[in-house]
């Protein structure tokens, strides 16, 4: 056995080592810095605001230069007037809510169907061979194509809208999950197996969390598809019983040759799509990526 002398020297050595290691750690540690609010405003908020202002200025200039008839290109102020009229009549929020609630509910249903479907396609070889290609093919099929059969099968009602949303969004969500699972590094699977995470435990502890970024990207796209599908359905299948959504607003504008109304509808459709993405999906995606160190600061 080691004598007392050796023990003291090795204890001294251990202290040396601890100090050396602490120094290395301090030198190597990755510095993580939160961006100050000022910088966020300057770098993230200012550029898009400038772009929007520029578009408005160009728009107004085109109107002032009278490049075309006023019923074809209304001035920004006329669109603003339509907006305030709707607000004063109290219909604006109703119209928005009709469409947004439909899209969100449809999206949630797509989520409930697309997630297990994606897992099946990703994990079961037979299912993947059978419906994998169809699922990715469906993504390139414009969902407006589903409106006609959906109206004939289901009729002019809310269920028809949901059917169109599902057909548009489910493939995106399922495909996102499949891509996420496919991109799980094999090293994680091997590490998981040596730790004893096999079968269902492996799926739960390793595959699902590792696939989360791809899944979230699929959800984001799924939302965009939900919204687009719903607008297609609302524009084509308008009927008084369906209530007034943004798509019908656009269609009504066309029927009444009300260009400010059409512009307003288009702008609102765009704004809602962007707002949901900015408020829900982008923060979620960023939080996941940041916690994994995958968000590269420029």
């Amino acid at each position, binding site marked *: 056995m080691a004598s007392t002398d050796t023990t003291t020297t090795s204890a001294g050595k251990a202290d040396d080592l601890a100090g050396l290691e602490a120094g290395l750690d301090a030198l190597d540690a990755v510095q993580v810095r939160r961006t100050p609010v000022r910088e966020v405003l300057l770098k993230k908020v200012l550029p898009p605001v400038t772009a929007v202002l520029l578009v408005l200025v160009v728009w107004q200039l085109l109107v002032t230069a009278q490049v075309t008839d006023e019923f074809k290109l209304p001035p920004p102020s006329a669109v603003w007037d339509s907006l305030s009229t709707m607000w004063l009549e109290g219909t604006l929020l109703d119209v928005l809510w009709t469409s947004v609630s439909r899209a969100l509910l449809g999206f949630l249903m797509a989520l409930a169907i697309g997630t297990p479907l994606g897992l099946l396609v990703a994990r079961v070889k037979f299912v993947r061979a059978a419906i994998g290609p169809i699922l990715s093919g469906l993504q390139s099929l414009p969902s407006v194509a589903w409106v006609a059969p959906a109206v004939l099968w289901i009729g002019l009602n809310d269920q028809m809208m949901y059917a169109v949303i599902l057909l548009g969004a489910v493939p995106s969500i399922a495909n996102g999950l499949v891509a996420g699972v496919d991109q799980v590094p094999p090293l994680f699977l091997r590490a998981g197996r*040596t730790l004893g995470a096999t079968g269902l435990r492996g799926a739960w502890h390793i595959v699902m969390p590792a696939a989360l970024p791809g899944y979230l990207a699929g959800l984001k796209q799924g939302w965009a598809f939900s919204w687009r599908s719903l607008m297609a359905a609302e524009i084509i299948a308008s009927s008084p019983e369906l209530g007034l959504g943004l798509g019908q607003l656009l269609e009504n504008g066309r029927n009444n040759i009300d260009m400010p109304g059409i512009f307003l509808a288009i702008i609102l459709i765009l704004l809602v799509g962007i707002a949901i993405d900015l408020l829900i999906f982008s923060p979620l995606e960023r939080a996941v990526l940041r916690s994994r160190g995958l968000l590269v600061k420029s």
Partner: protein
Amino acid sequence: MATTATLAKAEEDRAAVTHAARIEHVSKSFGGPAGSQLVLDDISLDVAPGEFVTLLGASGCGKSTLLNLVAGLDRPSAGSIETPGGRPALMFQEHALFPWLTAGKNIELALRLRGVPKAERRPEAERLLELVRLGGSYRKRVHELSGGMRQRVALARALAQDSDLLLMDEPFAALDAITRDVLHDELTRIWRETKLSVLFVTHNVREAVRLAERVVLLSSRPGRIAREWTIGIPQPRRIEDAAVAELSVEITEELRGEIRRHGQH
């Protein structure tokens, strides 16, 4: 205390078996379109309880393949492998920590998969982090740690499996020389404290001599055991020790001879 009791029991178990791993006449070939290729040829090797063995060889000697076989990630084509202490722990060249978990939670996942009750996981993870001298890093994310710190967390996670046998697949190959040197010291310290058996794969002769009690040289294509050295230099050693250097020269000569054979036909 319960831990002392388990330790004592583990001690008894270790005394009862004569080996932490027994590799007997193991061969492995991989099938390909051009016929199967023999990667490992009739390897027999025992790792005694508490022993530190390095497997040394040039590329193509199948050392990582052998480690995968011992880890149970793959099956040998012939022969048998016994690990009486259960599933061995395995450390890779890449840290293989899960980026969606903190350093502490990575270790807790290993504990959870081993069946450690929830209440005991946190203190045990903290203890293991202390052991690799990362006491304050429980909440750190993987990307916030340096390369050397990541490998230490990976070591702590491997230790969390509470296996008698730790397999290491070139775990320090991607680190800078200073960090690697420090981690050699750490590994030696932890090996002596925990009395683990270690099977360590490397292509770095000095690293092999610095760490091991026994160095096993594998020839390439197919991998066969070419020669063995028992290292008598007392620990703690340093990689720049004259005795380490002297033996390294001898082993390197042998390794070069093995490699040269492949250029002759």
